């Protein structure tokens, strides 16, 4: 189907200094865990987006010198010729598809702890980082300033050599140039501190020098947080924010606008539970609206809806649609709009799992919606292309249509298996997503800071996308409302059986903290609930509720939010140092804490329950069990252990003779039914099995390419043997 003409505006080229951006789709710099040291992953991940129609793709933040070292988090680096060579692979791959390559030159100052290089970061004033622990910069005198500016110039020249088209002087997220600009970091009294012009001087001079060095050949860009969101003590869009854009407008070919800083960058990479699409508009939208720039502007806001994109460009908010997360979730988003295939768009759900892995430091990026993200090179997976399976004459039964089962059936369908039946006991497919997406509470009220309580509703996109794809596959049948016994599975007539029956919550308080049940815990009682029962409304919830959360992710806090939002007095108890620790990594934690505060939720950390009785829970301090605390409550919600629903799998597996007699050649278990896990990992598990269903031992993942240096040899040949082992080499 041809493109709807109303989207033509998204496909108009635009000039960025000496370079032409072929359309308005722009992958802004974002981390993936590749940097310069996994060049294959870097080149193939960005290249996949170029193939999918993005007009430009950028590196993640790219260190210009060893004294800007963010280890253990993974940045790119352009320190030497080796880095030039590795990053050139990414440029070449992008250029093959007609996309521009951008590099975000980065000097972190005190936000870069230099744990690998052991170097000393320099900064405008000697104030410890508000992001790192106990990292102080060295005060920069004029020599230091000249030295660091020369680092930018040298890095820019190397970047040009690598083949980059767009070269950033990166100051957003409160890295060095912004530290000079903001009085929050800059307490200098020399010509680099005090007045606006003095504070802007470092950034302006750096831009001038980089432009002088490479500006004839490359587009010069700057990423700038137009508002620090800290009020008058730092940069505000209506004051120095707009002023800075005007002041440096002559030096850039492209502005890339954000808000906030790195210490709470969830204000920029806003999670869906608090921020809606295009949520930065109140800040970043002011620049063009106020005629503060004559240069092209790119901005973000987890924009996945083509109509929003058109509105943004035609209203003059931005000239170019920037995306990090939407481009991870769907590298082919531009092409799908171009081809009129809007219902094939795999929309980002705003869970920020991608970000969590960078925050953890080290692991490659993952994506809940797109299981192939980060696997383009090492596993050879393509998000839109699927090789017909070598054993495609086989028919497959997938039992359980939760995240793992839906994904597995969809990929098996796309791999042209002769017949795939996806059967689920519930009336609707989607499994746990159907009730989880009702958590987090969505009273829509304003958060204490900004954003609002929107709940986890956008997570339902996990189901929506797969349901639409499954409907389109003529070799896949979906049968909800049908609970299969082992006998029925055996007689089903499938040669391959995949069990994806999910998991349930412990009913007796069994938990990861004590590895034992809790005395008195029994969710068969009408006043004790598992989290899914909070949504199910089969049990009446009393006025005073205690939520025990031993999971460390979203469940306990989201249940607390929902119940407190409905007017219950909620006490949230965890054995850990903080509630929902993993939500620090997904950047949801700061907003979550504000929301729980708004809702009046009482939080008790380092606290565990030893006994539950009607009307009272007996708690103790984990560091001093003699220190007891009693909680008088009417209802208890136990977010404790999850347990695989694997009885069907175990029963089938127990009788190998019968499996053989019934013609079942393969029996596999995936997702929570195999071991409870996060949704992102369930979907990966289902995808992985389907991708490798024709491998010699589908239950065992095939080896993937490990980008490592082999002792005594470091040519690309090192990886050839592993490369040949993968199923779907691009």
């Amino acid at each position, binding site marked *: 189907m041809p493109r709807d003409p109303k989207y033509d505006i998204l496909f108009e080229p635009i000039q960025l200094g000496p370079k032409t951006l072929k359309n308005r789709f722009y992958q802004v710099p974002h981390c993936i865990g590749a940097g310069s040291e996994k060049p294959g992953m870097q080149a193939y991940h960005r290249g996949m987006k170029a193939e999918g129609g993005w007009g430009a793709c950028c590196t993640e933040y790219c260190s210009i010198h060893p004294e800007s070292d963010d280890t253990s988090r993974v940045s790119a680096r352009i320190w030497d010729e080796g880095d030039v060579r590795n990053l050139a692979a990414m440029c070449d791959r992008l250029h093959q598809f007609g996309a521009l390559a951008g590099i975000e030159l980065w000097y972190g100052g005190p936000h870069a702890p230099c744990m690998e290089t052991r170097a000393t970061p320099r900064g405008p004033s000697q104030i410890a980082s508000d992001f790192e622990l106990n990292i102080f910069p060295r005060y920069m005198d004029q020599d230091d300033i000249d030295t660091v500016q020369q680092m930018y110039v040298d890095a820019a020249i190397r970047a040009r050599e690598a083949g980059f088209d767009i070269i950033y002087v990166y100051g957003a997220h409160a890295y060095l140039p912004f530290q000079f600009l903001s009085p929050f970091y800059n307490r200098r009294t020399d010509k680099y501190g005090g007045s606006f012009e003095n504070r802007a001087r470092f950034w302006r001079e750096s831009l001038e020098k980089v432009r002088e060095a490479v500006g004839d050949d490359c587009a010069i860009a700057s990423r700038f947080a137009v508002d620090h969101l800290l009020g008058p003590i730092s940069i505000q869009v209506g004051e120095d924010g707009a002023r800075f854009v005007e002041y440096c407008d002559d030096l850039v070919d492209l502005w890339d606008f954000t808000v906030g800083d790195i210490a709470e960058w969830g204000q920029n990479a806003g999670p869906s539970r608090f921020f809606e699409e295009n949520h930065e508009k109140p800040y970043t939208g002011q620049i063009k609206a106020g005629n503060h720039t004559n240069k092209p502007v790119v901005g973000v806001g987890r924009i996945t809806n083509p109509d929003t994109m058109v509105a943004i460009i035609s209203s003059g908010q931005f000239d170019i649609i920037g995306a990090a997360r939407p481009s991870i979730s769907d590298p082919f988003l531009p092409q799908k709009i171009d081809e009129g295939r809007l219902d094939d768009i795999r929309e980002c759900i705003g869970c920020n799992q991608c970000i969590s892995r960078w925050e953890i430091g080290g692991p490659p990026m993952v994506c809940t919606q797109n299981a192939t993200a980060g696997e383009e090179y090492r596993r050879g997976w393509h998000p839109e292309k699927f090789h017909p399976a070598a054993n495609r004459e086989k028919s497959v039964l997938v039992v359980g249509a939760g995240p793992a089962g839906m994904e597995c059936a969809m990929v098996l369908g796309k791999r042209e298996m002769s017949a795939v039946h996806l059967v689920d006991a519930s009336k609707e497919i989607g499994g746990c997503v159907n009730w989880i997406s009702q958590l987090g509470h969505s009273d829509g009220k304003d958060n204490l800071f900004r954003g609002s309580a929107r709940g986890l509703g956008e997570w339902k996109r996990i189901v929506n996308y797969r349901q639409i794809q499954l409907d389109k596959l003529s070799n896949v049948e979906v049968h909800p409302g049908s609970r299969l016994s082992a006998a029925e599975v055996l007689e089903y*007539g499938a040669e391959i059986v995949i069990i994806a029956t999910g998991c349930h919550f412990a009913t007796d308080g069994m938990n990861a903290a004590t590895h034992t049940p809790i005395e008195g815990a029994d969710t068969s009682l009408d006043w004790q609930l598992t989290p899914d029962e909070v949504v199910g409304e089969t049990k009446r919830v009393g006025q005073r509720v205690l939520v025990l959360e031993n999971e460390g992710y979203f469940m306990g806090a989201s249940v607390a939010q929902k119940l407190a939002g409905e007017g219950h007095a909620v006490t949230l108890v965890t054995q850990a140092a903080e509630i929902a620790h993993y939500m620090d990594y997904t950047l949801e934690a700061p907003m979550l804490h504000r929301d729980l505060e708004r809702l009046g939720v009482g939080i008790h950390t380092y606290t565990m329950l030893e006994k539950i009785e009607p009307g009272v829970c007996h708690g103790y301090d984990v560091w001093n069990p003699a220190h007891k605390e009693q909680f008088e409550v009417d209802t208890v919600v136990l977010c404790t252990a999850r347990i695989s629903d694997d009885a069907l799998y175990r029963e089938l597996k127990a009788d190998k003779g019968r499996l053989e007699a019934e013609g079942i050649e393969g029996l596999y278990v995936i997702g929570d039914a195999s071991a409870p896990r996060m949704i992102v990992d369930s979907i990966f598990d289902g995808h992985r099995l389907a991708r490798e269903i024709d491998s010699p031992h589908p239950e065992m993942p095939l080896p993937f390419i490990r980008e490592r240096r082999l002792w005594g040899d470091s040519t690309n040949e090192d990886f050839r043997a592993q490369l040949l082992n993968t199923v779907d080499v691009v």
Partner: protein
Amino acid sequence: MKIVVPVKQVAALDDEFELLDDGSGVDPDFLELDLNEWDAFSLEAALQLREATGDGEVVVVTVGDDDADEALRGCLARGADRALRIWDESLDGADPLAVARVLAAGVERERPDLVLCGVQSSDAVNGATGVALAGYLQMPHVAVVKQLDFDVAQSAATVKRELEGGLVEVLRVRTPALLTIQTGINEPRYANLRAIKQAREKPLEVSSPGELGLDADLVAAAAGSRRRELKHPERGEGAEMIDGSPSEVAARIVEIVRERMSG
């Protein structure tokens, strides 16, 4: 007990579609073929009756070209015992009365106790074939059945029809009879993979009106109508686009309302 279930392979439209240039129908590229939704319920009713009575046979019959085999195989997979497809190129574009006349020849040959049709087909929505078939068979019929209880000893069915205003009409009908079955009467089963594979081996007979002793003229004479043209409705006149500022638009709307009210 022998039950015949006449079914139809219907065409569902894609979200966007084009008509054939000659106006004879929708471009088949934009159609997705499937078993008529109502027929899934009539087939299920037949299968349940066969299972309840412990023996008998369910025969599905359709009038259609070989595209319709897929629908018949689907019925066989769900549990029908045999299938009969009747076709002749002269039947292309046949109206419900002509189809009913052809079906009648097939059903008469089977001499069933019950004929269970769907109330209507989702593509043509005439709701005529079932009752017309009863007419040709000279069988008693009940249309739009929401509940069906069969009394084997009496060879009679007690059926409920839902009428306007929430009224329920209860009828008792002796076999042989024809019922048209409404959706929601049961929960149609699906076929597992083994049944789908086994259905490939079940008998699917292809016949023609001639082979069933039906004269082509008789079929032609039965037809009550023919489709002359399928087209999008013409855009009506009388719409007035009102331009101007919101207050100007509002003033014009007030003016129009006053004109109409006084007129």
